[in-house]
């Protein structure tokens, strides 16, 4: 049902027939409005992208939009990226971000998948109450956990280590993960589980050989969501990991650069783009899965 076809049918049936010209005009107005909004939305990112490839002098003497008006005289360079990645430490921060993000995505998925299976297909005392508590925990603000967890981490000498952030993100991501996975796993046909049981499969076998393969779409949605969430997080990293160079993640590196060299726009724009590159790639590549996890996901504390 293309919009055009719809239009034609509607006008055939409606009383007064709009002229061909007015229909054409309407179509163009819509296109124009859409174009204007898209341009407004894209301009901020475009400015950063262009500036990150301009020499420091150029960035600081005239606006990035002059590359369009003064077309012949543009110089382009990778030296901003070189400087940010190597001497300012974004290269290291990028690897640190990976070391934080991958386990902080995989661990909650594993733990949540087992729990979701139990909530959906196993019988145990307190099942409903516990699950309702999980639903309630979905919206708990992250801020509620910061102070006590920090003092707990200090007591156990965990603060400033990767496991501290992995576990914190696992805790904060679990309610959403359990909720999403349980809804999905619970909607798998029960005949499937029963026939597997009749064939003598244990719960563990049903889970690993049947449920996990069938749940790949929802696992992917949550994985993407959690990945973006952890990668883009500043607060948890700031509190539990800190700014030491050997653990500092990209969001923190960017914030530090903003603090120390807040007017060095050739560096800030390159740094900003480095932090954005991977999530943008993941997002553009896997948009379909991402949308699915979105509604439930944004409620996350």
């Amino acid at each position: 049902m293309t919009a055009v076809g719809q239009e034609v049918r509607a006008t055939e049936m409606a009383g007064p027939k709009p002229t061909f010209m007015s229909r054409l005009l309407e179509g163009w107005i819509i296109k124009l409005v859409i174009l204007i909004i898209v341009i407004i939305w894209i301009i901020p990112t475009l400015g950063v992208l262009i500036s990150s490839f301009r020499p420091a002098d150029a960035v600081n003497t005239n606006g990035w939009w002059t590359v369009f008006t003064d077309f012949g005289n543009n110089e382009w360079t990778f030296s901003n990226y070189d400087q940010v990645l190597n001497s300012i430490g974004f290269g290291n921060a990028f690897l640190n971000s990976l070391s934080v993000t991958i386990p902080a995505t995989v661990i909650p998925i594993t733990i949540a998948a087992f729990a979701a299976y139990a909530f959906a297909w196993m019988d145990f005392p307190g099942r409903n109450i516990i699950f309702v508590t999980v639903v309630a925990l979905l919206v708990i603000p992250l801020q509620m956990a910061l102070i006590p967890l920090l003092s707990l981490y200090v007591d156990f000498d965990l603060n400033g280590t990767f496991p501290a952030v992995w576990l914190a993100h696992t805790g904060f991501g679990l309610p959403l993960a359990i909720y999403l996975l349980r809804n999905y796993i619970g909607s798998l046909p029960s005949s499937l589980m029963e026939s597997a049981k009749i064939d003598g499969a244990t719960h563990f076998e049903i889970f690993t050989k049947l449920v996990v393969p069938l749940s790949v779409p929802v696992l992917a949605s949550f994985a993407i969501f959690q990945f973006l969430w952890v990668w883009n997080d500043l607060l948890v990293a700031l509190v539990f990991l800190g700014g030491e160079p050997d653990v500092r993640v990209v969001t923190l590196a960017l914030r530090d650069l903003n603090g120390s060299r807040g007017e060095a726009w050739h560096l800030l724009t390159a740094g900003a783009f480095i932090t954005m590159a991977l999530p943008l790639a993941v997002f553009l590549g896997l948009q379909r899965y991402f949308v699915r996890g979105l509604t439930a996901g944004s409620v996350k504390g």
Partner: protein
Amino acid sequence: MTIHTEQRPAEPEPQAPPPHPEEPTGIGTQLLRIGVSLVVPVLAILGLYFAGNVLLDEDSNRVIVVVMAIIVGVFGVFGLYYGMDWLINRMPDRYRDKVRPFAFVGPAIVILAIFLLYPTFDTIYRSFRDPTNASFVGFENFSRIFSDSEFLISLRNSVGWVLIVPLFSVVIGLGFAVLADRLGRRGESFSKTFIFMPMAISFVGASIVWKFIYNFRPEGFGDQIGLLNGVWTSLGNEPIAWLLQEPYNNLYLMVILIWLQTGFAMVILSAAIKSVPEDIIEAARIDGASEFQVFRKVTIPSISSTIVVVATTVIITVWKVFDIVFVMTGGRFGTSVVAEKMVTEFFTFRNSGSGAALAVVLLIAIIPLMIANVKRFREQEETR
């Protein structure tokens, strides 16, 4: 939240296996259940702790750290579950079925208890105590929040954020979804991608992107390199330090979050619009309704529940916004918000009492949503 749930007995779910005939559950079973719940998280934490320490001490190749982290994360945690199952299979018959569910669900419960439940109660407790958590001060922290002018400004700003950002995100998102619906399929998904894209950008990244837009140079210090002042001065005006203009600077910060959240509203609302039955819309058109009337009288009422869900979701995000204010202004120039103030109070001023009290303020505002969530969930379960 447990009070709420305990008022009603838990209904058995239709898809649940029939409960076992009630045998008395012995103390041995209970102990095994607790033990089984604890083993995986405790071993996991210890394993992660040592793995993390070793890797940090080595101070070695980052790539190795990443690979090790993945191995520990994927295989380590899964291996623990596998080991637990192996153990349970070797238990006496009468324990096996009663203990097994806890090997599956126990680790999650333990982690939720340590990382969310306990901190929540501890934060509430600390909010009634002095800055160093040494003695009780009653409601002093809260009375300070609601009387001190600094705190009142952050409360005012937070309320402003919660009113303005969701409104604009939903209105722009809805408008865009409706218009894009009338483009061809390719044009629609292409244009939507651009609006949606900022969803993937971190709040810190977005802040830098917009700080560049708002950049200001006093007159005589060279060309403006911020787009907004570039446009503004080319119209013959004096450059403006946008982020210092109280109270309008709050609006300029809100623009960033509107930019980030509109895509979310647009995608969800677009899906809802497409699910409005075609024949209702056709019928309205046959009755001579204009396109705008169809939109107002048919489309909007049919998607009203989705609009509520989207607005609520954006409200929660906005209410907890921290990064944008923290990076853009550090909460100065009259721009602080509750979530940012909470972090500053605790980490800059080392005041655990008022930091906790601000977190509690955040929580209290969200409790109605929490109850609504639980209610909606229970209704869903009844109709399954």
